[in-house]
């Protein structure tokens, strides 16, 4: 068990810098998910913690010991790789027990631990098989068991579920979380799949272009995205954005065509400040034309089974609206869209950062609903 402290870590390859000064404090036993698009430096960061990449500058400390110059084996980390990286010539038992063998554990103890660990991930009957004879899910379990058996202080996952099919992925996701709850090692899990991030994380770290955009619990990040990037990255379908100018007198944002979108509370910014309104598809409401906040036209309706996804167009800007109703609308039909003022996220167009008034407002609302 160990806390991890990442202090202003940079990573450069020959020409380009891929991680630009990342700092992160991870508490003992926490499950951290690093989420970001491919190439954002999340895997590099993980590999620097593991010791598989050198640290260009900055410090990484595990349990208050700076590990910059330690070999991977000395760091007490176990890692699960994306393509499992099982030793193809060894049996499942040998794969799981290899780390113990290297460490010189006595054979009897090793075999007992291998068997116990294999059983705990449901591989008890497969100990004599080779990785080539296992299914993807089983190989994933072997990779997990290989990491668990070492009783590591830190558990690292490098997109471990992305080679599995959708159903198995959900199942393994639950098992990973259960294993974490059981052994409570500090875990860092890297993924580009926001569902994995939202469901697994104690705290979510959203990365983009080698920097951390935001750190917070999944609900914090969903409800109060700190930047336009995070707002657009988290949530599926993605958040809608409309740009406009702040109009203090009317307590609203004036969109480019003059339409006013009322705000619940005003930020402390000058009149005419350029802002972006962000609103999630599930918070938009469909109305008759003229009855909503803005008027739009239907582009396409997608059936999702439980709900419907309405793709609308407002002044050439695509808008996405999720509704449980069954609106009978043909493409091109005019509709009205209502933007609930308390659901609106306000971002500064220039800095791309969240404008904080909405946060205050939302907090109040949440605490009210909490009382009920």
């Amino acid at each position, binding site marked *: 068990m160990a806390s991890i402290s990442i202090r202003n870590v940079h990573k450069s390859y020959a020409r380009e810098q891929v991680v630009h000064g990342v700092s992160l404090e991870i508490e003992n036993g926490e499950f951290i998910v690093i989420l970001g698009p491919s190439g954002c430096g999340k895997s590099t960061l993980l590999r620097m913690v*593991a010791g598989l990449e050198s640290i260009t500058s900055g410090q990484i400390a595990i349990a208050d010991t700076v590990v910059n110059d330690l*070999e991977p084996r000395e760091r007490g980390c176990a890692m699960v790789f994306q393509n499992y*990286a099982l030793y193809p010539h060894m049996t499942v038992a040998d794969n799981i027990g290899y780390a113990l063998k290297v460490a010189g554990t006595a054979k009897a103890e090793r075999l007992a631990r291998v068997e116990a660990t294999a059983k705990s991930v449901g591989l008890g009957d497969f100990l004599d098989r080779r990785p080539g004879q296992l299914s993807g899910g089983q190989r994933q379990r072997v990779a997990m068991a*290989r990491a668990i058996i*070492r009783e590591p202080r830190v558990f690292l996952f490098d997109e471990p579920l992305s080679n599995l099919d959708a159903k198995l992925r959900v199942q393994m996701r639950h098992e990973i979380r259960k294993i974490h709850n059981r052994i409570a090692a500090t875990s860092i899990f890297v993924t580009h799949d926001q569902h994995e991030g939202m469901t697994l994380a104690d705290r979510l770290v959203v990365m983009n272009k080698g920097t951390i955009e935001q750190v917070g619990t999944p609900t914090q990040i969903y409800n109060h995205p700190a930047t336009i990037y995070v707002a657009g990255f988290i949530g599926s379908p993605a958040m809608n954005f409309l740009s406009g100018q702040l109009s203090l007198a009317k307590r609203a944002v004036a969109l480019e065509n003059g339409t006013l979108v009322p705000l619940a509370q005003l930020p402390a910014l000058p009149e005419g400040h350029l802002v972006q309104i962000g609103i999630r598809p599930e918070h938009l409401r469909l109305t008759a034309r003229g009855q909503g906040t803005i008027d739009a036209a239907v582009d396409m309706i997608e059936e999702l089974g439980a709900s419907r996804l309405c793709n609308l167009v407002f002044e050439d800007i695509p808008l996405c609206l999720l509704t449980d109703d069954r609106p009978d609308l043909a493409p091109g039909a005019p509709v009205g869209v209502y933007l609930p003022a308390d659901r609106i996220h306000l971002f500064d167009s220039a800095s791309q950062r969240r404008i904080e008034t909405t946060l205050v407002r939302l907090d109040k609302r949440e605490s009210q609903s909490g009382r009920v």
Partner: protein
Amino acid sequence: MIERTPLLNVFTHLILLSGVIVMLFPMYLVFVAASLSLKDVSAIPPHILPGDQLWVNMAAAWEKAGFGEKFLNTFIVAFGVVVGKITLACITAFGIVFFDHRLRMPIFWCVFITLMLPLEVRIVPTYAVAANALQPFQVLLDVTGISWLINSLSGIEVALEWNLLNSYTGLIMPLVATATGTFLYRQFFLTIPDELVEAAKMDGAGPVRFLREILIPLSVTNIAALATIMFVYSWNQYLWPLLVITDQSYGMVAVELGRLVPKISSTGGEVAKWNIAMAGTLIVMIPPILVVIFMQRWFVRGLINTDK
């Protein structure tokens, strides 16, 4: 796209068949000549069907060439060369592929360039080294003046000498370096996924352990393929043994076979005993053929790298 029509099938099989005939017909002639008596083998037109003197001729060839001792010698040398080549190729490729250092590409190219310098091309300098393996060091000491220093300080004349002529070491060592083997291993090592290397690192295995417990077990088929090629290669060595061996108790089969084959200068007025020479050829061919037959499955798998 693979095209399959009956006509094309017949045609391709005809081509293959003619290839087989072209390859095997000389072998067949060897077999026929080896089984004829001296009178029949010299007959014109030559006999096409085998006779009944095969065992007699083979026994005579074995006796005349002293193959008992030569076979043992050749086995020792071939074994030494195969083991040496595999070990050296494996370690070199390991160093080139898995260690990130500035010299890795220069070293790789140095090894690769030796493909263009086979033993036959560098035979004179190689002979000089074999005659005194410490010669390069002697030159180094002389040039730097260290030998003069030692001489004037202690009165000892520095004269390093290590003669490899007429020894198994001399036969084996110059044949051990192998660019082909290193290249084969390198190509195989490059197919090992990075994650496997990293998983081993995370499991705490150091480089030697990784080589011994992961790479070598994974490259068994490669070793088999390399062993096959190299066994045949060293079994058939002719020029080098001819040069370094003057003591016949170190003789190798291919050289001895050369002595069995009648030459105008050596036969003098004697009748050329082609039947004995061909019987000797048959005997010498047997071990490489057996090795290839037994190793064929591994050999092919090792070369196409599908066993993973």
